[in-house]
């Protein structure tokens, strides 16, 4: 297949979704930019008129800009207690404020003093001066600020997929989770093109308003008018794409966002890596086939805390968590090695503190483990982490950011084994296996059930000091929902006996290695285990 055919095939397979995601992306950026204009221009006017307010105001919006995007999203998630479009739009609005406020101040300050005096001298009130003279003269500078804000916004909006707001970042997110380059590009290229289109449209708008002062022939006036409509045109296209594919559904969902599981709906979340997504999808398909509940999939949540907060605050109703992760990262309890003790501890604490229920554990222990290249392990005679610790100073480690921070990750490991790696790189979970296999790093924080360990000839080192707690995968569900729909527990339960580490590795590899569609992988597995009948409703919408 030629390169072009391949591109066309990828687009064709994801055409409808691409249209939807582009629409969402435009809406996220457009709505937040419009809100930022409505807030930012008055703030800028205020700052320009009150010299004392200018510094604190600009410093304030400037600090907002320095908050890392993901941190901002996570903070808003915690404050608003919901995922989806709302926190994303607020975050994008806050980022858009600085260029708009700053340019409004600059534009107003740049007006020649004799023009200001003339405006007062002809008898304009303060409001008339602003409306008739100052804002029109500052407009080109203000529009330049809006242009910066909108273009930057298109880029940042790709991150809002991490908190379930959709947009083109959804492809990037999913592509990262499934190690699928096609999907990453399917998100990245359109968002880059969109940024260029937005930049061009607002540049045309600038040209349009400025040439109103120069051009007098009808054709020129017409062209200038058309140019000023372009940004609105992009918004309209976005709105059409959005509503034609969803009927405004996700906006309504975000707006309503009533009680947990209202009206027999179960919102299933998943963190953004293959195994978590596969398990969530299996649960979703089982519930769809065996109950009357309506299922909403909220996949690609950008990390443990985001998923946990979403569940606790009722933005989702269920997701699969791991016992060790809950113990150390969420409850911040000391590490334990007995699997049953860990499960008992977390389920009691969750019931008490969060009103959340841990269902029957799956027989999957996706523990953290240190992985090295098989060849290197043979050469250096490594079998345990203690073996590795002796040479740690000369080794390069690649850890996920989460592992680097979590008490059951590198900090605890370093303390228990007394090791310190020569260099530690932050790597995305989806990228670290290949980085290790290709010799970019010497050791990684692997997940025990990852299919790539075998496929890439990697070796898990023995945790000879029993540092890593067990990480059994368990569906966690909101207590209120489970009380109303106890069938959720009984329908999911049979999954528990159908899975083990080896099966999970194979399923993970089917997605990560063979690039198969996770929905299909889940469906096939459930059918093979006779948990789903041969043909079910889920086959009808199994293929995206």
């Amino acid at each position, binding site marked *: 297949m030629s390169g072009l055919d391949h591109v066309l095939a990828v687009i064709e397979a994801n055409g409808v979704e691409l249209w939807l995601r582009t629409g969402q992306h435009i809406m996220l950026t457009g709505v937040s930019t419009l809100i930022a204009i409505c807030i930012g221009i008055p703030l800028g006017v205020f700052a320009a008129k009150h010299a004392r307010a200018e510094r604190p105001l600009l410093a304030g919006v400037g600090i907002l800009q320095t908050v890392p995007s993901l941190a901002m999203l996570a903070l808003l998630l915690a404050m608003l207690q919901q995922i989806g479009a709302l926190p994303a739009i607020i975050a994008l609005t806050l980022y858009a404020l600085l260029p708009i406020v700053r340019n409004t101040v600059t534009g107003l300050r740049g007006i020649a003093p*004799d023009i200001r*005096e*003339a405006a007062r001298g*002809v008898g304009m009130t303060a409001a008339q001066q602003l409306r*008739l003279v100052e804002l029109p003269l500052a407009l080109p500078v203000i529009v330049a600020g809006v242009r910066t804000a909108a273009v930057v916004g298109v880029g940042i909006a790709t991150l809002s997929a991490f908190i379930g707001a959709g947009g083109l970042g959804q492809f990037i997110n999913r592509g990262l989770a499934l190690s699928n380059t096609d999907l990453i590009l399917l998100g990245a290229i359109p968002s880059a093109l969109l940024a260029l289109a937005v930049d061009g449209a607002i540049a045309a708008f600038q040209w349009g308003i400025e040439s109103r*002062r120069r051009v007098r022939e009808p054709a020129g006036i017409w062209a200038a008018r058309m140019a000023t409509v372009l940004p609105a045109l992009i918004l309209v296209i976005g709105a059409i794409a959005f509503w034609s594919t969803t009927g405004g559904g996700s906006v309504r969902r975000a707006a309503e966002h009533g009680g947990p599981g209202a009206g027999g709906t179960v919102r299933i979340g998943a963190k953004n890596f293959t195994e978590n997504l596969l398990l969530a999808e299996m649960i979703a398909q089982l519930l769809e086939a065996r109950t009357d509940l309506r299922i909403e999939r909220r996949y690609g949540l950008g990390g443990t805390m985001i998923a946990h907060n979403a569940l606790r605050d009722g933005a989702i109703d269920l997701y699969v968590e791991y016992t060790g992760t809950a113990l150390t990262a969420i409850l911040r309890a000391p590490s334990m090695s007995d699997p049953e003790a860990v499960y008992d501890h977390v389920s009691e604490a969750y019931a008490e503190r969060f009103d959340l229920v841990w269902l029957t554990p799956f027989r999957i222990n996706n523990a953290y483990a240190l992985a090295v290249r098989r060849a290197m392990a043979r050469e250096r005679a490594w079998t345990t982490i203690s073996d590795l610790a002796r040479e740690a100073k000369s080794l390069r480690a690649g850890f996920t950011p989460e592992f680097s921070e979590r008490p059951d990750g590198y900090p605890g490991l370093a303390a228990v084994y007394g090791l310190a790696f020569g260099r530690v790189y932050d790597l995305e979970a989806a990228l670290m296996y290949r980085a290790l296999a290709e010799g970019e790093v010497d050791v990684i924080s692997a997940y025990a059930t990852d299919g790539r360990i075998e496929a890439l000839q990697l070796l898990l080192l023995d945790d000879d000091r029993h540092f890593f707690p067990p990480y059994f995968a368990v569906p966690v569900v909101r207590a209120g929902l489970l009380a109303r729909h106890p069938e959720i527990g009984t329908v999911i339960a049979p999954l528990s006996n159908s899975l083990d580490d080896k099966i999970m590795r194979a399923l993970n590899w089917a997605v990560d290695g063979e690039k198969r569609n996770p929905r299909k992988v889940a469906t096939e597995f459930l059918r093979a285990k006779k948990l789903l009948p041969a043909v079910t409703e889920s086959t009808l919408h199994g293929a995206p």
Partner: protein
Amino acid sequence: MIVLDHVSKSFDGGSSFALHDVSLTIEQGETFVLLGSSGSGKTTILRLISRLIEPTAGTIAVDGRDLRDYTEIALRRNMGYVFQGIGLFPHMTVADNVAVGLRLVGEPAPQREAKARALLELVELEPDAFVHRFPGELSGGQQQRVAVARALATDPDYLLMDEPFGALDALTRESLQAEVLRLKAKLGKTIVFVTHDIVEAFLLGDRIGVCNEGRLEQVGTRRELLRQPATDFVRALIARPLQQLQAFQELQ
């Protein structure tokens, strides 16, 4: 009638004075020229009269009422102001610039356009050729004519002109000076005219006030200034054009 009574103005809280104890009466219908070099306080007097700034001490009355009894807006709409820097709004057409004062008082667009055309004719600019143009497309002299038309738009009783022709070449300046004389004869406005040009002051002023370092050295007709200069400063000032003329003749 404009009356300044012991007016002082300090811009720095009283350590120095831009205007020092000035008393002055400008009569109805006269053209009063404030003559002085830059920094002499002449523009400060003009800005005080239109309440663009407030006096530090003393009072100003217009038509028998204290300036502070007028709202700033009403006052300025009764005082057409032609600014030193011209101050046309660059984003408005000539017609919109001329009629901006009418827009502020809510006059509908068709009337505004008609009045703008009449005013352009008054300052001898062909309306059809100018209404849709922007200030940036005009020559300095044309801009200044537009500025005069704008100042006249609300039919004010007073016309305040701050070195309106300072930046123009000699020929344009002469034709505009003639224009002011013509308008004055036709409209009978009270004009307060600020200039540093002695010849212009003598040409236009019914009476002339000579400003120097924030003080009013002498007020009088041109005849009075020529015959009885009150101070050495006035004497030297008046002698200068004659000296220039002599120097010019010697060159010939």
